[in-house]
């Protein structure tokens, strides 16, 4: 069991800055994030894009902003549970929250700060009827162990690097048959990967279907075939054991929606006094919250994080008085 003072759900810019502000008050933080790295959208969606509205930075790349926030938080030694999604929350007999991830990791804290942005990033699922029925029965959104496909017929959908790389890997003596399906003839992956796929297709080691998409999944208890709509070949029925749709990630509010928090349009309602939710001890900061006049800006997330930790301190230490101390006077004293 991981114990901390403030359990932050979401390791994006707002969550990371909360670590710093909490640290100034001698509160320890631990962050959970569904992505395998810290930084949230800044790291996952647009690390190379410049941001122009961070005070005192006329321009900073999103990835660089994350690096600097990590550096700023480092003296306060935050813990991280990455690549896991916060799934369930409960309270123990001492009134502390226990948060369990989808992989079973348990965290305990008197305070939860949800800094989840738009939610946790999950694989984008194609709108194919009965898709849910075949999940883990022939349809997988992530390739965890390529040997799982040994001797099997596999169809991969997508036009990015992960689709290309796995098609290349699995067609090299792993799977029995590999088909790569993409909606157009151009791929957005690395040029050498695209060339490799073309070469493998020419040699007959891989079936390449461009200008095509999967429209139906067939089978009883397990996937046995796919119906493909092809601009060149019309409707094609493909026999297959597995289908791996690789269409990138998109954020979903996910299990937090069931935490008995007041939710309006996929955002958590908060009191702007301290960004507390309707559940005492649970706060929501950054893009995931909503209140009259809300703006989804990193700048606003920083402000919300700063006020949130003040309130969290008073909840943890109701008997202590808090005095605002300027970092310029006292410096930053880490743990």
């Amino acid at each position, binding site marked *: 069991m991981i114990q901390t003072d403030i359990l932050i759900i979401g390791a994006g810019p707002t969550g990371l800055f909360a670590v710093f502000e909490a640290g100034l008050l001698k509160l320890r933080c631990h962050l959970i994030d569904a992505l395998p790295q810290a930084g949230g*959208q800044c790291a996952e*969606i*647009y690390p190379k*894009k410049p941001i122009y509205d961070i005070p005192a930075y006329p321009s900073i790349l999103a990835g660089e902003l994350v690096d600097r926030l990590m550096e700023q938080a480092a003296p306060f030694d935050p813990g991280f549970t990455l690549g896991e999604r916060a799934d369930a929350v409960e309270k123990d007999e001492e009134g502390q929250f226990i948060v369990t991830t989808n992989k079973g990791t348990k965290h305990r804290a008197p305070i939860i700060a949800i800094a989840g942005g*738009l939610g946790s990033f999950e694989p*984008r699922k*194609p*709108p194919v009827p009965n898709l849910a029925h075949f999940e883990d029965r022939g349809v997988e959104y992530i390739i965890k162990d390529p040997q799982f496909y040994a001797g099997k017929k596999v169809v991969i959908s*997508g*036009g*990015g690097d992960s689709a290309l790389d796995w098609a290349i890997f699995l067609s090299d003596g792993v799977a029995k048959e590999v088909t790569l399906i*993409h*909606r*157009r003839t*151009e791929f*957005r992956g690395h040029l050498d990967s695209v060339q490799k796929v073309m070469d493998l297709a020419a040699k007959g080691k891989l079936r390449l279907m461009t200008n095509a*998409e999967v429209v139906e999944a067939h089978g009883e208890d397990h996937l046995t075939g796919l119906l493909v709509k092809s601009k060149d070949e019309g409707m094609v029925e493909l026999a297959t054991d597995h289908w791996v749709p690789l*269409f*990138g990630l*998109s*954020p979903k509010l996910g299990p937090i929606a069931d935490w008995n928090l007041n939710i309006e349009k996929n955002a958590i309602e908060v009191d702007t006094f301290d960004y507390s939710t309707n559940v005492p001890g649970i706060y929501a900061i950054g893009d995931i919250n909503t209140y009259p006049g809300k703006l989804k800006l990193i700048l606003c997330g920083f402000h919300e994080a700063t006020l949130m930790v003040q309130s969290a301190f008073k909840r943890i230490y109701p008997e202590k008085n808090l005095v605002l101390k300027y970092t310029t006077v006292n410096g930053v004293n880490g743990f």
Partner: protein
Amino acid sequence: MDGMIKVTVIDREGVAHELDGPTDMGMNMMELCKSAELPVEGTCGGMAMCASCHMYVESETDLPEKSGDEEDMLDEAFVVEDNSRLGCQLHLSEALDGLVVRLAPGG
């Protein structure tokens, strides 16, 4: 009216919404839909990086060509047709007056 155009957005229930779009605010179709509280997510904020503002162009409006970024991002959308566009890449200008779009399924 000067600086205003009319566009029509057909939502996923088939209801047509006629919207007034200002051409002097640097707005795009994704933002216009959001400001009218139509169900367009615009997750990435308009950088052609999430495909959550996928829409079909149903009018004969002469539109600027798709950029490579937009074409790449449509790979992560579903049910992509020849008239598919990302709303965030359609900047409101006089040229878009009379545009009719239909929101793509999902979001």
